[in-house]
């Protein structure tokens, strides 16, 4: 299983500002995580019909998972390759068809990806709303 690690560092602020801008940093990190999810999903959808990748094999679906870094405690996004085999489709005219006329398709199900995309978008929106709320609270406290 091929694994690539993308580390999203926790934002650092000078001490007096950190307590005020803390929620902003947390929400920004949450949005970055959902961005990674959306990038992975869009890569899967874009390659839903790629029957021959760089290694000559059909494209394999990638899944983004969130983990907590044991050292820093910050959330880390990990990209995992789904090794499940794709469907065999009968298409004798296809250049990648075997001698029986079957083509091994990528293991990407577009409807599954769309549902995952909807969840990612919803979580991104939730983080954006929290970010906006923190911003308006900060603005209000500056008006006192």
């Amino acid at each position, binding site marked *: 299983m091929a694994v690539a690690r993308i580390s999203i560092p926790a934002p650092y602020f000078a001490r007096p500002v950190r*307590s005020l801008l803390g929620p902003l940093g*947390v929400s920004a990190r*949450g949005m970055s*995580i959902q961005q990674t999810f959306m990038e992975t999903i869009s890569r899967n959808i874009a390659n839903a019909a790629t029957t021959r990748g760089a290694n000559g094999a059909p494209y394999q*679906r990638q899944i983004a*998972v*969130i983990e907590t870094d044991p050292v820093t405690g910050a*959330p880390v996004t990990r990209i995992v390759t789904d090794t499940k085999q794709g469907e065999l489709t009968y298409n004798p005219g296809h250049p990648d068809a075997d001698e029986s006329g079957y083509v091994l398709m990528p293991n990407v199900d577009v409807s599954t990806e769309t549902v*995952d995309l909807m969840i990612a978008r919803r979580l991104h929106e*939730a983080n954006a709303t929290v970010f906006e709320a923190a911003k308006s609270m900060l603005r209000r406290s500056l008006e006192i």
Partner: protein
Amino acid sequence: MIRGMFGRDSITYQLRGGMKEAMDTHRAIAQRVAEARQASTSDFPGQLQAAGAQLDEDTLTQDMAALADTQLRFEAASRLLQKSYNDLRTAIRGRG
């Protein structure tokens, strides 16, 4: 006299405490929303996890409602604090 204006029993101190509490609540909500996990729906374990994620969805809705509540409380406390400071300013200057 100064203690009466800014001490622990003063309204400004209590309002500041309320604002700090709202800030802390907001930070906790932001942390929970940022760490909300997305279950993959690719396979059966993934689908099971997604079914379990329905609970997370409920928690998310509750968190968003709590966020709105916290925001309103913060807004109210900050407006009252602003008014208290304005009153104090008026009292110190001796004019409106």
